[in-house]
């Protein structure tokens, strides 16, 4: 395994690390995307661990910073930051394709990185797989039943409800909070559910593989492993979706056992599809 500096672009380059295996055994390159403002090392160094594990199994990978994050300087653009991240992902794919001859890519991202992978996979046919941790998720009837079902039998929940009902402020969630769903628990703006469903339809129509891992950090919107397929009933997944629910893991995966599990899941999945 050898790690090298990657620079993409001339005036304000994007910086990253390309991890080259001793012997390449795959025709895909995995692009590891930023999670929010975390730089390319990833939360709990998970991006480094993943890149090195992939290299052990002969897979090339790149972890890099979008402009303005980590070790990449901000660029002057007129487009939105969401659009910039998509364009920069495509720019990195172009560079890797021209320098290494790679024609297909897997995009991996946690949280906002998952959203970028989702957007780019719809636009660029070179993306043959996306690995998403905590992608866009939506509550459904099952979530409400499971979430409130146990609370119906809990006296404290009832007391809290009545306190809120009569206008006394108290820390905690209200039913009203659940009806207004434009931001998720991490403050991210989320698109309408039907738009995301349409996006997955486009992705699967191109036979692009999807790996989804949901953590317990999404409990405010997700609480059952079957929920993911249920919230997107019109996506013809066939064998294109692999799903894992790590209900006890936190959103940024600080738990060593789940770090290993996530790296193993992604590594095996890349090997399978690559």
């Amino acid at each position, binding site marked *: 395994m050898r*790690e090298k500096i990657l620079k993409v672009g001339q005036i304000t380059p994007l910086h990253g690390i390309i991890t080259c295996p001793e012997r390449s055994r795959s025709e895909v390159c995995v692009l590891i995307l930023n999670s929010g403002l975390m730089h390319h090392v990833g939360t709990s*160094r998970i991006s480094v661990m993943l890149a090195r594990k992939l290299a052990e199994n002969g897979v090339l990978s790149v972890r890099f910073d979008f402009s303005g994050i*980590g*070790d990449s300087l901000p660029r002057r653009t007129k487009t939105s930051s969401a659009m910039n991240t998509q364009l920069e992902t495509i720019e990195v794919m172009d560079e890797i394709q021209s320098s290494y001859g790679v024609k297909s890519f897997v995009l991996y991202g946690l949280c906002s990185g998952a959203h970028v992978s989702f957007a780019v996979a719809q636009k660029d046919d070179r993306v043959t797989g996306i690995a998403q941790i905590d992608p866009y998720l939506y509550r459904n009837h099952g979530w409400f039943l499971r979430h409130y079902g146990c609370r119906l039998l809990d006296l404290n929940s009832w007391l809290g409800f009545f306190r809120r009902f009569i206008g006394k402020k108290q820390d905690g969630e209200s039913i009203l909070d659940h009806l207004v769903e434009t931001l998720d628990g*991490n403050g991210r703006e989320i698109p309408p559910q039907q738009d995301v469903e349409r996006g997955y339809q486009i992705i699967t129509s191109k036979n692009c593989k999807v790996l989804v891992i949901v953590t317990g950090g999404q409990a405010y919107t997700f609480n059952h492993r079957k929920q993911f397929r249920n919230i997107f009933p019109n996506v013809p997944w066939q064998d294109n979706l692999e799903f894992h629910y790590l209900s006890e893991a*936190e*959103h*940024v995966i600080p738990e060593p056992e789940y770090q290993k599990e996530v790296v193993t899941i992604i590594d095996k999945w890349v090997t399978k599809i690559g």
Partner: protein
Amino acid sequence: MEPLYFGESSSPLYGVYHAPNTKVYSERAVLLCYPGGHEYMRIHRAYRQLASQLNKIGCHAFRFDYFGEGDSAGNHHEIKMERWVADVHSAVKELQAISSVRYVDIIGLRLGALVAAKVASELKHIKRLVLWEPMLSGQQFVDEMKDHIVKSGVSKSNFIDNQQSLNLNGYCFSEESLQTIAGFRMDDFEWKNKPKVLSLTAREELIQPINKHFESKITNHKMLFVPGLTDWNALDAIGGLFLPMDSVNAICSWIETN
């Protein structure tokens, strides 16, 4: 901003060089030593900002990842203080080579301050040393982590395992790592070199012991109280990124005027 790998090819270290914003020759070069574990992730953005501010006052700046941290070789559970000291020596040489500047200043935060102090006490060409939230011994760092686990409760991310490895906020410190950290004490440093020293802390209770430590060792020591983060181990759901601009500005101001 110029990222690069340096050091031994068998275990390379990752660093980023920031060139000064002046066209004339600059004689000032500053090495930035990160803290360790989750503190490294929390402060990464602030270090980039600090390097950029140093460039504005005409300094070369170089920040780098120790062995087992960030993009450098090695796993986190393999870290040892002796290796980190060697890494700082290596980074000083790299900065001298890139900048063509002989005299170097070092800034270190938390555990990084302890490592920076060790190297500054040994190398004659270290002129100024900034100790940001310094620890007088690695034992303090280990104790803080253990206290946090006790106070916040054992969880799947924060615990001590059967091999006595300490896991905190996503990072594993092996028993051997903990021993090398705990045994690392500023009292043991022989100050063959006597740089100008600035210490900054947000913890009032540390002012007196830090002052006391330096009064017999370093004549040119300044202590600053800068309000800021006092609990480095409590994180929010997205990792607790921290941008302490008051401290960054205070450091740059001292570097510029000294």
